[in-house]
């Protein structure tokens, strides 16, 4: 009997366990999935919690609902991956040997990486919305907040879901307008980037929205510390931004077990072949989702597109064939822009987000890089697809590779920003 062990039962791990259990005979293969939590969180839903749009029940379900009955399920933290000896030590005392290992342990926020962040103002005037508890605490706080300076700060890149900070400020603008107190709130986005977003065409479009909504932007600000007494954040080059309410997107890192196992880089992300998703160091280890060091977005859509590629390559590896499937860095994200509207972006390693129609060229129904009500409905409808189709490993009518059909390059920037797709 051969063994596949999957570490992590989030979006990527859950899709993989479903695909593999369906394809492999239980007589020949034992598939085990390990996660520290009993519940699966729909992480894109965290964004809506602070504004009272979603509650806890909308984003949390038991993990066992989504695992196939053929899989061995173990709830435990991971202690150590012993790659030279092909085994994993768990905190519950189990030791799991493997023929193939899939690491899908994701990324987590580390507010403790920033001096003064987790101090006397934490969860009082400083909140995160990348955890369920952070988002719920912020929702409580906002119910009775009377206004002041709302600072949304990104600590350092890369972060999970790079569009979430923008969506947060757009939804905040909307929320305070509806409460009739927008004039009492100053919204400021403070980012280490040199613009509102990492990619030029989208950054210019999204920057326009920010100006329309009266949201201020502070760029190239790398946070060094928080002054809890003076209520300000201070950059490494001694610039200061005052806040009454600080919403932080702290440093994102891979889990500590990766560091202990000496498998990660300086952020505990695992060096991974950006096309085959094989570990650069170990032939029988594959990595998927936020746990990789790929130059792609850390997002559920990326994990989903990667899962098709990884499945094909694992099957090839099992059959002793070369790894033929290649990931192109495809990401696809709905962006809430407030007031019941949204945008959609679709891009990969080689092509930045462009305007156009998606998924059917010329028709849509979704508009790329343009605000529409349909895009907002797409984002809300996606939650149903996520729970019922996506993480169960069922097919969605979307190819893993990005397509240029239906997209166009704005004339002014043609030739400058599009790299050759090799």
């Amino acid at each position: 009997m051969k063994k596949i062990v999957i570490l992590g039962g989030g979006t990527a791990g859950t899709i993989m366990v479903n695909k593999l259990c369906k394809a492999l005979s239980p007589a020949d293969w034992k598939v085990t999935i390990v996660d520290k939590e009993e519940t699966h969180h729909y992480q894109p839903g965290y964004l809506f919690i602070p504004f009272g749009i979603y509650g806890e029940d909308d984003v949390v379900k038991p993990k066992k609902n989504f695992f196939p009955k053929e899989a061995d399920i173990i709830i435990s933290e991971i202690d150590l991956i012993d790659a030279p000896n092909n085994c994993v030590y768990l905190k519950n005392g189990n030791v799991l040997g493997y023929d193939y290992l899939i690491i899908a342990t994701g990324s987590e926020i580390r507010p403790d990486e920033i001096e003064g962040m987790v101090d006397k103002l934490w969860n009082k005037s400083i909140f995160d919305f990348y955890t369920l508890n952070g988002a719920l605490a912020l929702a409580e706080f906002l119910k009775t907040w009377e206004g002041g300076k709302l600072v949304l700060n990104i600590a350092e890149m890369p972060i999970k879901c790079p569009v979430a900070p923008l969506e947060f400020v757009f939804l905040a603008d909307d929320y305070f307008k509806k409460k009739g107190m927008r004039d009492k709130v100053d919204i400021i986005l403070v980012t280490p980037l040199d613009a509102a977003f990492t990619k030029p065409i989208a950054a210019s479009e999204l920057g326009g929205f920010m100006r329309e909504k009266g949201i201020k932007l502070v760029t190239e600000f790398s946070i060094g510390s928080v002054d809890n007494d003076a209520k300000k954040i201070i950059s490494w080059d001694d610039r200061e931004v005052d806040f009454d309410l600080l919403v932080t997107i702290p440093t994102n890192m891979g889990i500590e077990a990766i560091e202990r196992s000496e498998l990660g880089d300086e952020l505990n992300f695992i060096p991974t072949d950006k096309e085959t998703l094989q570990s650069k160091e170990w032939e029988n280890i594959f990595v998927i989702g936020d746990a990789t060091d790929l130059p792609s977005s850390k997002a559920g859509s990326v994990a989903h597109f990667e899962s098709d590629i990884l499945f094909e390559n694992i099957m090839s590896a099992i059959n002793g064939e070369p790894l033929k499937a290649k990931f192109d860095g495809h990401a696809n994200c709905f962006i809430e822009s407030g007031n019941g509207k949204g945008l959609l972006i679709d891009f990969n390693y080689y092509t930045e987000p462009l305007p156009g129609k998606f998924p059917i060229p010329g028709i849509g129904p979704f508009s790329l890089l343009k605000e529409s009500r349909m895009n907002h409905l797409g984002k809300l409808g996606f939650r149903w697809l996520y729970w019922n189709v996506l993480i169960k490993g069922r097919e969605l009518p979307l190819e893993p590779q990005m397509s240029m059909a239906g997209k166009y390059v704005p004339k002014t920037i043609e030739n400058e920003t599009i790299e050759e797709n090799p």
Partner: protein
Amino acid sequence: METTVLLNKTIELDKDGHLANREDWSEELAQELAYQVEVGELNDKHWTVINFMRNEFEEKGDAPSIRKLNKQSGVSTKELYQLFPKGPAKKAAKIAGLPKPKGCI
């Protein structure tokens, strides 16, 4: 292809304004580039960072992040920002004749 004239020599630049050809780099040229990005006169600490970056690039094929510089070069993040104000990773890469560190999205 954009070019610039430095030390009486025409030099090709990439789309980010960094050297297009690493063989064009020299210590004198690094000093010229440092003036351009308002880093000024290069001292020993600057050179520690520049040399660390060049070695890392040679080994890994990518310029190191600030976090890695802080952990491994012996120069703290605070000092990095004093040495290369506003974006040490980007500025030090430019002076070191390396491409802009790969962006994260």
